[in-house]
């Protein structure tokens, strides 16, 4: 085995990664052109950012490079050689690896097992002693360190994302493609991961192609940037020559500075959602939510801050009807609430959970059907209680697709074919388009969205609040909460440990409470 030699801790300087050129790539899905003659160059030992609106074609471009899609026209060059890449396996043979937005590790297996599993050259018998020696040596000189023996299920989101990257490095990838690697991470975790990669890049060991929606990350970590707009190349250049405004303008085609909607003072304050001494467990039976008491009133946005994994997800799941509470009560408009469809409809409760494709969509069903998830049993979509009016479903979907600028090839396309941001928009359209929303529960509603969409959602939330909707919002993005919420709370270890009106919020204390002090 040559692995041992290459992975020996002596700092053998590897030869620089190849230069990757994408030349005039066009990709059509039927009559829809997702990429139109896009070219770019990833220089050896650099970080190259790929920016663009939701649905601009970023994921499609890297999937063409990885061999997931066959480009309609155009070529991929490695060190100026035309390279035919027909599958991710071919890409791997050229030393190109990709990390996806979602995790791909097996939760029940340990870190070491996952790493060995990811290898293409699977042997019939695994010599674990030898593998562990090699893995140890590999870890010693890799940018991240994760305990090899713990099951992946026990890792925090940041750790899992590191493992995904480690997997590619373990497969000896010299060109690493990251598709929105940071949207599941807190800003701190994102900085750590990107910073460590940066140090590897500076040593000329690695090139990184980074898809992100965050200008901050582009400016802090990337050398060059390519900007796509509606499948076309909209701009390219060195990051140091470009301002955030210039990049935003290239992304949108105009200086798109959406006016933030101002918060109006609430007229009346009546309680809508009351949570009384609520307890709930994690999947593994350990307590996640431990005695939460909270009231949300009409016309108010209540923000819950906290580091991920402190029970926020479970709290949202209980409120959204996905998880049973162990004790405690939930009341909506003074009535006990158990999350049945009838109660949701009567009280007009809606939810925007995180990971919408996993939590709020049926991947195999069409965009139109997914948009009808809340309304299919209400007239005009149903007649005589038993007959679905498909036309009414399509008409509503058509209206929502337009109003929320969902980019989809057709209403009949399965929603899993849509770009990440457009899935989010589909769910958003379904959950906040109704005029009669009374209570909205949102969890990280802006993950994976481009900045114009983020503005759009923020405005939609504030607008809903001004109409009198009670909004409960969890977010790991403190800035988002500070700008939107009327009241902010901090959740730590399953309990609410801080509460303040937004104008009296003390950032220092919030930080301490989030860290568990």
């Amino acid at each position, binding site marked *: 085995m040559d692995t041992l030699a290459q992975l020996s801790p002596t700092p053998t300087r590897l030869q620089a990664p190849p230069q990757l050129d994408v030349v005039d790539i066009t990709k*059509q*899905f*039927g*009559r*829809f052109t997702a990429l139109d003659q896009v070219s770019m160059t990833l220089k050896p030992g650099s970080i190259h950012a790929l920016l663009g609106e939701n649905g601009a074609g970023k994921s499609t471009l890297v999937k063409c490079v990885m061999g997931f899609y*066959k480009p309609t026209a155009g070529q991929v060059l490695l060190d100026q050689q035309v390279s035919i890449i027909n599958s991710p396996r071919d890409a791997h043979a050229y030393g190109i690896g990709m990390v996806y937005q979602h995790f791909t590790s097996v939760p029940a297996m340990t870190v070491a097992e996952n790493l060995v599993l990811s290898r293409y050259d699977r042997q019939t018998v695994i010599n674990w002693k030898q593998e562990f020696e090699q893995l140890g040596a590999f870890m010693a000189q890799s940018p991240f360190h994760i305990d090899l023996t713990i099951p992946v299920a026990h890792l925090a989101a940041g750790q899992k994302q590191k493992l995904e990257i480690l997997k590619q490095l373990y497969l000896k990838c010299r060109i690493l493609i990251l598709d929105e690697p940071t949207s599941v991470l807190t800003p701190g975790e994102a900085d750590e991961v990107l910073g460590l990669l940066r140090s590897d890049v500076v040593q000329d060991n690695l090139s990184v192609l980074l898809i992100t929606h965050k200008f901050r990350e582009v400016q802090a970590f990337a050398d060059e940037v390519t900007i796509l707009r*509606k499948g076309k190349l909209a701009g390219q250049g060195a990051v140091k020559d470009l301002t955030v405004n210039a990049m935003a303008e290239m992304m949108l085609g105009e200086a798109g500075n959406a006016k933030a909607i101002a918060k109006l003072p609430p007229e009346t304050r009546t309680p809508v959602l009351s949570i009384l001494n609520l307890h709930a467990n994690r999947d593994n039976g350990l307590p996640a939510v431990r005695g939460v008491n909270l009231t949300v009133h009409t016309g108010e946005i209540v923000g819950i801050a906290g580091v991920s994994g402190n029970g926020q997800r479970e709290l949202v799941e209980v409120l*959204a*009807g*996905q998880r049973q509470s162990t004790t405690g009560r939930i009341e909506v408009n003074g009535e006990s609430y158990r*999350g*049945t*469809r*009838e*109660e*949701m*409809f009567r009280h007009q409760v809606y*939810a925007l*959970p995180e990971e919408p494709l*996993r*939590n*709020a*969509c*049926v*991947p*195999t*069903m*069409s965009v139109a*059907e997914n948009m*009808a*998830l*809340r309304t*299919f*049993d209400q007239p005009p979509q*149903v007649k005589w*209680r*038993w*007959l*679905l009016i*498909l036309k009414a479903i*399509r008409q509503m979907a*058509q209206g929502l*697709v*337009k109003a929320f*600028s969902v*980019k*989809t*090839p*057709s*209403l*009949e*396309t*399965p929603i899993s*074919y849509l770009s990440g941001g457009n899935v989010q928009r589909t769910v958003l359209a379904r959950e906040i388009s109704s005029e009669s929303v009374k209570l909205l529960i949102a969890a990280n509603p802006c993950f994976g969205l481009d900045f114009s969409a983020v503005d759009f959602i923020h405005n939609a939330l504030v607008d809903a609040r001004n109409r009198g909707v009670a909004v409960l919002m969890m977010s790991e993005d403190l800035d988002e909460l500070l700008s939107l919420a009327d009241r902010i709370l901090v959740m730590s270890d399953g309990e609410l440990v801080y509460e303040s009106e937004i104008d009296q919020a003390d950032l220092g204390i919030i930080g301490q409470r989030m860290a568990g002090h």
Partner: protein
Amino acid sequence: MLGLSQQALLRLPWRRSLESIALPVIALTAALIIFGGFCAMAGANPFQVYGSIYKAAFGRWSAWQHTLILSAPLMLTALCTALPARLGLVIIGNEGALVMGGLAAMATGLGLGITLPPLMVQLAMAAAGMAAGGLWIMLAGALRYYRGVNETISSLLLNYIAIAIMNHLVEGPMRDASFVIKPSSAELDPANWLGAIPGSRIHFGLLYGLVVCLLAYVLIQRTPFGFAARIVGGNIRAARIAGLPVGKLTLAICFLGGSAAGLAGMVEVAAVQKRINQSLVSNYGYAGILVAFVSRHNPLATILAAILLGGILASGGILQRSHNLPDATVLVFQGIVFLCVLYSESLYGKFPCFREGEG
């Protein structure tokens, strides 16, 4: 703004529809070829065997009638797998539900005798058969939902229990002592037999099968109930967020599936067997599983798949008589078809030419 005309938005996904027709056809062709190899090894000329199968199944009107008679119960038992499949459940208790349905229908028919007009008796028998079959499969659904018991295993075991119950009844409480050939129940009064459609030998059970398949299709595709079931089957987390009653839906759809198989039991006892005995267990249940998979759990396609398999079953005799192939040859063919179809399930989405908007 979208770069797409409204027309494009409303385009139908014909490529995927084509795929779900093409793949089963390819699988069936592959099965035919493999079966041809089997026949060749057994010393028969494959092409002559194909010819005989075709002739025995669809060659003449009388062959067609035989085929349709055999396909009637298959349409119904297939729904016992196809309907719960829309909810993500794999139910294979078709045989048991058929037996329970047959038993309940017969008990009702014998109990009512000629106290009511035949049509009323038949309706009562159908209702009893459907209730019994439905409750039987609902049991598997309830075990699944409330106790997390694997529904495939429990429904399989329920088959054996149903057959054991039937054997117990025909050897004990329900036995007709005057009938000596094999332990059987008394005979259904001829007035209550399910007759033939005028101008043919085909009994009315075929009509039951066609109507129920059509209703099942409408139920799944065109009603809020079916829509809700598809949501639960597609992503249970999304179903919970939409507040759908997952437990009730599970029980309801298992009941409906089981009642279709129960109705098949009623049809078999009222139109073919006329008595309850071992011959009620004639593999219609297991063949129904195959039909459900071939039709990809689409109740309309089930009609076609059932006729196809009915034809294969109808050709069983001729294979033995004119090609000297063993009796079980049709079962071999059935098994090969099953394997090919199951394998083809793994190929969906693998061919670029069928991919939405590619190529």
